[in-house]
């Protein structure tokens, strides 16, 4: 009980910030409604892109449309959960350019923690809804033998996947300390990674498989778990049993994110003035 009380005590400021953000976003209901609708539309058109391809062919990279529902659902769920919690750290370049990041360094909390807890964009819930719908449809339409292992795999894929994407967001933000205005470059592995993860990785040529399989390990978020759930063999270099190593992939991304953030935040010299 004492532990619980301590956690409640520790998280009180975060809960206060989040509650104020939620109130602020809901105080303009029309604007918030449009934001939600826009976010929903983003999810729906991303799904439509996949659907249009399967309108033309029945199998892509060894996966049927039903199987791809699982890949799309898992990858989008993990990405939009990470986006909801830490996606707003992509505003870091603005703070660096304006010099307002200095204020973050002066406060008695880690800079990264302050940035992560500064916002919670509720509109991103709409994309989570699209992802959940696709995932549920995938779980229902595929012939899955439910067992404890299946539930464990879904949990590992979701938590591990969200951690992987969150780590990639942190890596991207850390690089901004060096690149100043390099969001366009880091988009290639944050949004590019999200796009790649929602596709059957078997269609990629070997360099892309190595890139998204091991260096930026987004295939662990959806494609590998889907292969394991459906008892499908993976392509060369990406066997289905690797799905159980999703926590290892997540740990690798976290390690890279921590190191890059340390370098980046120490590299920063201040905006002057």
């Amino acid at each position, binding site marked *: 009980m004492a532990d619980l009380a301590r956690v409640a005590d520790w998280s009180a400021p975060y809960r206060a910030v989040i509650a104020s953000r939620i109130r602020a976003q809901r105080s303009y209901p029309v604007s918030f409604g449009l934001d939600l609708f826009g976010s929903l539309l983003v999810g729906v058109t991303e799904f439509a892109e996949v659907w249009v391809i399967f309108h033309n*062919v029945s199998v892509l990279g060894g996966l049927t449309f039903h199987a791809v529902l699982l890949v799309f659902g898992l990858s989008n769920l993990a990405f939009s959960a990470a986006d909801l919690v830490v996606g707003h750290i992509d505003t870091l370049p603005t703070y660096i350019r304006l010099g307002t990041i200095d204020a973050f360094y002066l406060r008695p909390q880690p800079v990264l923690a302050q940035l992560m807890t500064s916002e919670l964009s509720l509109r991103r819930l709409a994309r989570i809804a699209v992802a959940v719908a696709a995932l549920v449809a995938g779980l229902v339409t595929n012939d899955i033998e439910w067992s404890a292992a299946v539930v464990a795999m879904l949990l590992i894929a979701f938590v591990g996947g969200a951690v992987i994407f969150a780590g990639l967001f942190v890596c991207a933000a850390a690089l901004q300390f060096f690149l100043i205005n390099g969001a366009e*470059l880091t988009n290639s592995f944050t949004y590019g990674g999200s796009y790649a993860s929602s596709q059957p990785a078997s*269609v990629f040529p070997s360099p892309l498989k190595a890139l998204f399989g091991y260096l930026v390990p987004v295939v662990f978020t959806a494609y590998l778990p889907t292969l394991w759930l459906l008892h499908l063999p993976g392509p060369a270099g990406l066997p289905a049993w690797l799905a159980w190593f999703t926590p290892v992939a997540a740990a690798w991304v976290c390690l890279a994110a921590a190191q890059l953030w340390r370098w980046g935040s120490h590299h920063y010299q201040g905006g002057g003035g």
Partner: protein
Amino acid sequence: MLAGLCTNVVFGFIRAAILFAAIASAGGHLAGYSRGSMSAYVWLSQGLLGAVELSIQPTDVAERIRTGDIAVDFTRPVDVQGSYLAADLGRAAYTLIPRGLPSVAVGALTVGLVMPSSVLPYVLGLVSVVLGVSVSFFCRYAVNILGFWLVETRGVRTFYIVCATFFAGLFVPVHMFPAWLRVIADATPFPSILQSPIDVLSGRVIGDDAVRVVVIQAGWVVATCLVGRVLTAAGRRKLEVQGG
């Protein structure tokens, strides 16, 4: 610019891999595309993406309306819409050189493109690209000018970006759409922004068909330009700027 190019190329490789797999799965041909012509579609669209600019920056006209700076634009002895068009055409021409051509070159060197061997498609293609950039500009301008009536344009901008990227044929060519979706796409100006210049440049449409595509683009230029002018005139009557 180099950063943009790098991201452009990564997305190009992912898209090419997916669409090649779809073609292989369909038995070598899909919606009139072969592997080589699909490659041309992917890399031309990646190359043109920077120039036709499907997203809307909040720093455009909308921001000047919000701050009231638009009043300064109205007092200048040049047409407001025309001056922004000139600036945008210049921006587009600039992105083509460091970002557009290298993207196409990377595609040509790594996977190969099937491109026309005669001169005419390139000449007509250049016209088509200019028209595509113009349609894109007039659409973005019309959305931004809604700032006269809306305090926050982010919702409308998101809506526009999502519709424009999908119907312009950025991720999947419009030719792969099912018939009913194709009808909806053709009723919007968006295919004229990206799909049409690619079709003309890559020689997917040739001769009279190519001319017809360019004429349709010109029609959308006129239509979207008029919408922008009507909105500008209406907004100008409504505009009230404080201070002096």
